């Protein structure tokens, strides 16, 4: 890849890294990343991937920007309240880096569209905050054999894991079934520290870049748990479940299903 002078300056701090260099930066430029959700997690993930020069970033989200989002969803602003979140984020990312092609998809992701939507992408990032979507994204990535970087946040705690199809566990190995809706806090009671998705989204973006570069170790078979109150990071090894309904030896899930909605979506 021949860099323009602007690109050379923009990406110089990457090119200087032995693990990246010109070749790694060219791989980043060719990468296509699909982000589910343009909220707390999708904003920082997309923002940092745009800054890093990821060539194509798709964002899917059906919501519009509200004042209550601005405490943590850093791609949106007072100027974009009422606008579809994906359009608001696209404006922000393109203003940061014109090299990046941002594909804004204002839709609800479902069993009927997900496989078509992710087909052309290398890596999927889950920044949704509801169990139905997380299972759907996990199942679709397993079927389409796409690496998935999954993140979740609640109150002061966040989790990250990277699922590489055919290598290690899937999201259902970690969490067999969605918790019953009564156990998940309703929207009124589900608080979150605004900076928390910044930490977790930053970790997710880092996982994506390592997958693109083929360098370092990703959180494969491991769940990283961050507690912001304690300032603690804990890594939990998660084995593949041989009885997993999706990736186990005798799977019972062979097609996609949409779970009942009605969970809180943050």
């Amino acid at each position, binding site marked *: 890849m021949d860099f323009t002078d602007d690109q050379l300056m923009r990406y110089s701090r990457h090119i*200087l890294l032995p693990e990246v*260099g*010109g070749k790694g930066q060219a791989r980043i430029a060719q990468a296509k990343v699909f982000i589910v959700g343009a909220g707390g997690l999708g904003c920082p993930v997309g923002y940092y991937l745009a800054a890093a020069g990821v060539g194509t970033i798709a964002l899917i989200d059906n919501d519009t920007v509200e004042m209550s989002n601005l405490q943590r969803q850093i791609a949106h602003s007072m100027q974009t309240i009422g606008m579809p979140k994906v359009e608001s984020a696209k404006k922000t990312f393109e203003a940061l880096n014109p090299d990046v092609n941002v594909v804004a998809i204002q839709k609800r992701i479902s069993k009927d569209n997900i496989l078509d939507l992710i087909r052309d992408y290398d890596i999927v990032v889950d920044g949704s905050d509801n169990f139905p979507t997380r299972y759907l994204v996990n199942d679709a990535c397993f079927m389409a054999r796409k690496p998935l970087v999954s993140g979740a946040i609640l109150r002061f705690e966040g989790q990250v894991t990277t699922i590489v199809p055919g290598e290690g566990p899937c999201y259902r190995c970690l969490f067999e079934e969605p918790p019953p809706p009564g156990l998940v806090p309703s929207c009124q009671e589900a608080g979150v520290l605004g900076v928390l998705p910044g930490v977790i989204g930053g970790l997710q973006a880092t996982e994506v870049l390592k997958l693109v570069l083929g360098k370092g170790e990703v959180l494969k078979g491991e769940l990283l748990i961050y507690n912001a109150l304690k300032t603690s990071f804990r890594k939990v090894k998660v084995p593949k479940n041989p009885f997993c309904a999706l990736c186990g030896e005798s799977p019972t899930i062979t097609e996609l299903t949409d779970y009942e909605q009605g969970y809180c979506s943050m």
Partner: protein
Amino acid sequence: MAGDAPDRQINIKGLVCPYTFVKAKLAMEAMEIGQVLEILLDYEEASRSIPKSMEDHGQKVLKVEKVNDTDWVLLVRKDKD
């Protein structure tokens, strides 16, 4: 350094850090192991920092020479991809 005629030459006069090393590193990446890069520069700090960085990255610095009042010439052999 007979036998070390450069395989490639770059002129990075007028550039300052970090672009001096960025240009040199990109040139190096495009070369084969064992080939020699000649770098012409006029930024004094880079005459010290580029050789150090090249060594840090596993390359062999063959020559650092001030050739006139303003310019330096470096010869670096690519030992590592």
